[in-house]
């Protein structure tokens, strides 16, 4: 049937528009999807055909022949419709390759045995997938096997993985992404915010302080003074905040250092945010209300949230407007990072302005790491299986992203050396030319093999 649909003949007198429309009618009848989508495909191909016919006629070909050739170049209508359908939705073939990729990850785990991999559950499709793989992709399989066999412990393993990624390209990256995922089923990804180390607090914690019963704030200050460090206390500002030298510090559990005592004091003052702040100026301590430090340490930081917008666009059926996603992201930040401090929430310390996908955040410096963490987590948001059909691609896989960045920082020399030491020889030399058509294809699976469907919120371990 499909052969008959391809227009290869026809009367010499057939009009270009008629022939093109007939062919497009046939194609459109085979496309499934919303009417608007089908009509867009039709419009685009109609324009292509008209332009092609025009160019062929300008080259001296009669109209009827030009029309036949232009349509002939589009190929079989059924095959084209099938390709379109595959482009819109994940095909069964892609599903099979997905299984292959996951299974290769399983094989990689078995071979490598790196301590930081959690062993996945049994996969009934594994043997079939491995058979397909053996037929299609010896080079990639061998590269993986050799790399993982030489896989040193954690840290080194990451480097070795990165080597193979750089040399085998995208498909290996996808495979490694699956290999690095903790299990085969969808998992809930979680991450915990870790505050940056506070140097001043660490210095206070280094000062031993043992006491029972009640201690005053003045005694704490005295204990922090030493030959090495002087302590500057802004009593004027502290008193306005209700803190005086004779303020008592209750500590229900025994404390062992000045840092713990200061924390206990702040906790006893009851406010959500610690009232008394501590900073290091050179070697010396400065003690003042946190509000005072915040006002001094305001920083303006800009974030371009376009990656978050794009991630959201890829993972939702109806792409949201840029502003909608940015506003949503700002809402998350303002409700999680010192909520009471934002002007939008009635505070005075922090405010945010948006311009398109850009966000400017003017806030105390201590807020910024948390703001950044929240925004990065929005980018790492797991994707739903029902709305996506792509593959996690390099930087989309959290660990792969970190590996790529780490390699970019460290340059090329080390990974080549390490890799040779790890048992993989014949790695690329310096400055080799990039050829025209892709040598990249040579050892990789059949076409589209890397286009495994996204695996439904499977996250790499953090």
């Amino acid at each position, binding site marked *: 049937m499909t052969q008959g649909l391809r227009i290869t003949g026809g009367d010499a007198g057939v009009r270009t528009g008629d022939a093109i429309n007939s062919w497009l009618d046939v194609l459109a009848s085979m496309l499934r999807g919303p009417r608007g989508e089908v009509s*867009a*495909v039709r*419009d*685009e*191909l*109609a*324009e*292509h055909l*008209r*332009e*092609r016919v025009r160019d062929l006629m300008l080259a001296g070909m009669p109209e009827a022949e030009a029309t036949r050739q232009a349509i002939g*170049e*589009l*190929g079989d209508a059924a*095959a*084209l419709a099938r*390709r*379109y359908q*595959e*482009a*819109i939705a994940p095909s069964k073939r892609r599903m099979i390759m997905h299984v292959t990729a996951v299974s290769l990850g399983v094989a990689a785990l078995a071979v490598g045995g790196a301590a930081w991999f959690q062993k996945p559950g049994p996969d009934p499709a594994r043997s079939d997938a491995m058979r397909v793989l053996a037929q299609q992709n010896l080079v990639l399989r061998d590269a993986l096997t050799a790399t993982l066999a030489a896989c040193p412990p954690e840290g080194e393993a990451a480097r070795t993985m990165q080597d193979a*990624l*750089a*040399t*085998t*390209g*995208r498909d290996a*990256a996808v495979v490694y992404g699956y290999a690095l995922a903790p299990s085969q089923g969808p998992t809930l990804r979680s991450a915990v915010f870790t505050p940056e180390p506070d140097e001043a607090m660490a210095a206070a914690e280094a000062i031993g302080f043992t006491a029972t019963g009640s201690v005053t704030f003045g005694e704490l200050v005295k204990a922090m003074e030493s030959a090495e460090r002087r302590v500057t206390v802004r009593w004027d500002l502290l008193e306005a905040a209700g803190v005086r030298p004779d303020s008592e510090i209750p500590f229900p559990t025994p404390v062992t250092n000045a840092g713990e005592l200061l924390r206990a004091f702040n906790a006893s003052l009851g406010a959500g945010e610690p009232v008394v702040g501590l900073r290091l100026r050179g070697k010396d301590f400065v003690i003042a209300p946190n509000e005072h430090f915040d006002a001094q340490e305001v920083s303006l930081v800009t974030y371009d949230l*376009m*990656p978050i917008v*794009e991630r959201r*666009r*890829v993972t939702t059926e109806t792409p949201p407007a840029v502003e909608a996603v940015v506003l949503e992201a700002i809402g998350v930040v303002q409700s999680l990072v010192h909520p009471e401090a934002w002007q939008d929430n009635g505070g005075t310390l922090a405010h945010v302005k948006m311009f398109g996908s850009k966000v400017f955040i003017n806030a105390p410096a201590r807020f910024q790491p948390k703001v950044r963490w929240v925004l990065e987590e929005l980018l790492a948001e797991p994707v739903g299986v029902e709305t996506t*059909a*792509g593959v996690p*691609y*390099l*930087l989309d896989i959290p660990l792969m992203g970190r590996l*790529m960045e780490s390699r970019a920082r460290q340059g090329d020399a080390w990974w080549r050396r390490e890799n040779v030491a790890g048992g993989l020889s*014949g*790695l*690329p*030399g310096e400055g*080799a*030319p*990039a*050829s*025209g*058509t*892709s*040598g*990249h*294809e*040579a050892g*990789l699976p059949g*076409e*589209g093999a*890397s*286009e495994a469907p996204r695996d439904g919120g499977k996250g790499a371990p953090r």
Partner: protein
Amino acid sequence: MDILALGMALMDRNESAELVVLSLLAAGRSYGYLLSKEAAARSDGALRLTPGVLYPLLKQLERDGLITSSWEEVKASDSDPEVAGRKRKWYELSAAGRRRLEQRVTAHRAYTALMDAFVSSWKRTERTGGAEGQA
């Protein structure tokens, strides 16, 4: 296999076609027919981005957020202003597409460099063995 046939075979693989399309769009916005003409022109006709491969690929790249599209009405200067013109679909690389292209180029270069290491050593062996020519 001649170079043209090899090129055609490779272009039927979406992997290569994607790299070509993203590279062309990195130079500026374009539309389907223009992309196919540019691919042919840049390769002296050796590389043909056939419409049967190109258009579904554009659809897929758009779905994945790597390119964005917009429609333009095309009208001849002497046409009736009341009659709707033809529609042309323009494509542009998104920021995600630009990143994807960077990654693909990096991976592609590393891979060709790896292959070159083997190919060049094979040539040396041939020479020392005194064999003439190669396929």
